[in-house]
């Protein structure tokens, strides 16, 4: 394949790098449904530029979508899904798109964009409950997709998933699930430089979606080793 076919008349109109990005999203199934958590930060490179970005959104009656990566691409995806849900509702025939369908649709979209060398720079987490069935899945920017009992994007894969693998159970109550989520979020807050201390927890059950107002976690920086950081080596930091 010639390079010119990708470039298209010399004008490059494809995403080369992400600009405004969101960091990890973590999600897991619990007793009554599925729970997601993400911070509300939008970074512009190393600058924590936007601090009230909602990165978890409800989709239709049965699903929620969380995204990390390029925020504008996430907004584009929300537009696609909005159209999809609208057309689905217009049928008004008792059938509705559930989380499985949304997950698969998004997989097709991401994979097709990747094939055109014009990806949507996002890692997506889709979850929901339909007819008593809980569903949780992930789609990456190259179209890799899978389902699991707990998922995470970005740094969450390395910092949160080990905690979830150790402590997740099928029958967690909502309170237990939130505590486990907050444990993961705290680790991410300490260790991920793009994370900010302002989180939203979203839950979806058969009854519907609830996305909490943003709130902060209590952090502890009073470690004695932080008192005199250059004690062992003068002149260092």
């Amino acid at each position, binding site marked *: 394949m010639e390079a010119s076919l990708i470039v298209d008349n010399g004008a490059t109109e494809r995403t080369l790098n992400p600009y405004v990005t969101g960091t990890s999203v973590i999600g897991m199934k619990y007793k009554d449904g599925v729970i997601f958590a993400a911070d509300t930060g939008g970074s512009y490179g190393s600058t924590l530029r936007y601090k009230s970005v909602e990165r978890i959104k409800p989709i239709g009656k049965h699903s929620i979508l969380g995204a990390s990566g390029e925020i504008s691409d996430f907004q584009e995806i929300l537009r696609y899904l909005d159209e999809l849900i609208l057309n689905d509702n217009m049928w008004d025939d008792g059938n509705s798109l559930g989380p499985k*369908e949304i997950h698969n649709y998004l997989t*097709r979209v991401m994979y097709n964009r990747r094939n055109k060398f014009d990806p949507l720079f996002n890692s997506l987490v889709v979850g929901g409950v339909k007819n008593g069935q809980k569903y949780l899945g992930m789609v990456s920017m190259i179209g890799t997709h899978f389902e699991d009992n707990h998922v995470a994007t970005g740094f969450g894969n390395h910092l949160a998933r080990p905690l979830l693998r150790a402590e997740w159970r099928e029958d967690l109550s909502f309170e237990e699930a939130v505590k486990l989520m907050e444990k993961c979020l705290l680790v991410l807050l300490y260790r991920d430089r793009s994370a900010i201390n302002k989180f939203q927890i979203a839950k979806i059950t058969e009854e519907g979606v609830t996305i909490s107002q943003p709130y902060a976690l209590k952090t502890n920086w009073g470690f004695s080793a932080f008192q005199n950081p250059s004690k062992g080596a003068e002149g260092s930091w």
Partner: protein
Amino acid sequence: MFRNQYDTDVTTWSPAGRLFQVEYAMEAVKQGAAAVGLRSTSHVVLATVNKATSDLSSYQKKVFKVDDHIGVAISGLTADGRVLSRYLRNECINHAFVYESPLPVSRLVVRLADKAQVCTQRSWKRPYGVGLLVAGLDETGAHLYYNCPSGNYFEYQAFAIGSRSQAAKTFLERRFESFNNYSRDELIKDAVFAIKETLQGEKLTSAICTVAILGKDEAFHLIDQKIIQEIIDSIEIKEDAPAEQAPEQDEAGSSGAAPMDI
């Protein structure tokens, strides 16, 4: 129906507001061999009469699996029916590929109806000369639809199309109210009986009928000829026994089942 000056092409209205070409297409459906469909809350059964053009040939295929959860039986121009079945299969596969879930039956039926309607409004096309009984199961339950060449579609508890289908319809009209509670086997039996009604005296054997079923935990499939023969035999036994006891009743029944002879 007689020839008139408004029936040359499908894009000409008659003064009475009719499209004769569309109505002639519906006539083609009535000439085809009979097909019946019945539905309960959990299963749908389709049955057709297999007519062969001569003793030397085999019969034409009239029942098609569209997807695990949808099947169709056709009556009329079988070539048109085959083409439409291919379209239906394609729609189901495309939906399953994008959404990893079965296409809801009502949405498939609307697409088919819209496709048929196009042929009633283009001067360079002709209406499809085939009626389709679409049987399907989705999350809203079991469904049976009838798609006309006119582009209309209707949902039914039970229906029959094709030649001598009125006999089957009369039989079904007597019993349809209890179909929702029928078991799977009772539904198959009534479908076979309805086919028997359309034959009007001709011997019913499993060689001349095709029966297919789909249900909640049962993908669409054709029922084995041996099992159909067993069902036919069990129907025959039930009929022979009362015939010996009350011959007058039996005659009244058979004359009631052949209104087309009038």
